[in-house]
């Protein structure tokens, strides 16, 4: 190979590399998003913990269906505040709990897409969420304590109105097992 050819090859390589250098920033890669058609399993919850049984059920189904879990903290906005008001106090509960859920689900190889949804009531928040983002399945745990979380009427409403498969786990002696913010690994 003659020296001229070597020089031409070298110049061509450098020119190509330089062009790539300048062109690449304009061709930024898109962030990874959920593939089209990914199934979504909504896991609504309230308060300071989430039922381990609902969580485990969601993880099992998500693995079987290659679906994404959507844990959604339902936040109630007092009527004295506008519906789009910041809710720092409820976020103090929601954020570490969502972190704990995401960490646990991730370790089990399940994709997670979290939400905090506002509404005047828990049901209102759920309705707004479902109006904006269709899901394939909703998993909730029925509770024997009518004062906490979603009421029996809310569950009845879900069965009637939610355009998705609704899975209601009946009360169980295992219901004391909860996933709480204490499950967060490391600083949060």
């Amino acid at each position, binding site marked *: 190979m003659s020296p001229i050819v070597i020089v031409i090859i070298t110049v061509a390589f450098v020119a190509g*590399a330089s062009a*790539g*250098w300048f062109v*690449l*920033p*304009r061709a*930024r*890669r*898109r*962030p*990874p*998003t*959920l593939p*089209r058609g990914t199934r979504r399993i909504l896991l609504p919850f309230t*308060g*300071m913990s989430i039922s381990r049984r609902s969580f485990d059920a969601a993880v099992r189904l998500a693995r079987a269906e290659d679906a*994404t879990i959507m844990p959604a903290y339902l*936040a109630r*906005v*007092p*009527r*004295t*505040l506008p519906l*789009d*008001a*910041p*809710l*720092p*106090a*409820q*976020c*103090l*509960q929601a*954020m*570490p709990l*969502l*972190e704990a859920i*995401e*960490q*646990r689900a*991730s*370790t089990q190889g399940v*994709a*997670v*897409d*979290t*939400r*905090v*949804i*506002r509404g005047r009531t828990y049901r209102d928040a759920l309705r707004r969420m479902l109006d*904006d*983002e269709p899901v394939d399945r909703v998993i909730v745990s029925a509770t024997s304590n009518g004062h906490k979380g979603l009421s029996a009427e809310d569950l009845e409403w879900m069965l009637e109105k939610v355009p998705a498969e609704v899975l209601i786990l009946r009360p169980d002696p295992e219901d004391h097992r909860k996933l709480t913010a204490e499950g*967060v*690994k*490391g600083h*949060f």
Partner: protein
Amino acid sequence: MVPAAKQRGHPAEAPRPADRGHYTIFLGMAAGVGKTYRMLLEAHAEQEAGRDVVIGLLETHGRAETQALAEGLPLVPQRRVTYRGTDLFDMDLPAVLRRKPELVLVDELAHTNAPGLEHEKRYEDIEDLLDAGIDVLSTVNVQHLESLNDQVAELSGARVRETIPDSVLGRADEVVLIDLSPEALLTRLRAGKIYKPERVEAALNGFFRIENLAALREVALRQVAEEVEAKRLVTEVVGTREGTLAADLPQAVGERLLALVEPYPGAQRLVRRAWRSAQRLGAQLDLLWVAPPAGEPDPEQQRQVVALHQLASVLGTTLIVEPGDDVADTVARVARERGTTYILLGRSRPARGLARLRVPLPQRLMEALPGVDVRIVADRSLRHEKTP
């Protein structure tokens, strides 16, 4: 959301005259934690030590234990003010100033005085007492602080009308937190030690829910921690450089965070962590997505952008969307415009091809923004547990 630390007047701004009274505030998370009780205990201890102690104003709310503890402490009678045919009772400030005790107890400093008195608010009366060289013990609940008004409205569903500027707490020589676990407070409530029996059920279903109390307790603990930190910093600065830096201190400790996000599910984790850090630092948080200038986001990306907007709104922050070819340049510009001191970003995806030759984004940011911290937020679920 304006952080409490920014709203609070700094103690260094107003040097304390030597003859000004000593000001102690007992701070609690809610009614019934024992602020007034603790104030009375302190008053008895001072009295036994030989000091001239009087009660300027005491609100016992009919609590027998508190009333019993007030016995033995001299009381300056309240004055009656008739307003629109109603008799209102308030602290008799001129009488206390004439009496000139060494120490006076003034309960509930957030109270609004009856119209026509010397001052509109009770905390202003207290300033007169302190200026007269009288030491003051007072009480307040954390929800009365102006900067926490939104938060408390959210918790209780009702806005607290009687608020005080956060600077009032900053001017106190001592802020003593009266802490009680939410469970213990609820036990006291159920036992009728806080409200009369007919009000207990309403209180349990309203403000006195355990999650509310837990959140308020955290707020109160953080508030006192911030006070301690602010005072410590002032002491250090005033003590080392003749106080010249004191005026600059609020700016020096004022942090502003900028979290770089992209419309994909993992961004929510980054936002959560950034928000928590902002809370801890008492800082403002901005979220920034540098959007590619060409091309519309696909439906999935649009969903994620909406989700990020919603999350930003519920957290009280804003999502800034800036189109830009060059992420580092755009971030640097926004950071300069907003006075950012701290940038948080997620771990970059592995570079491919010629992109490997480029300087990584964190390094470019550090070069473009000297003096700004850059933090890469990890996925904690990937962390290996330490083996014993």
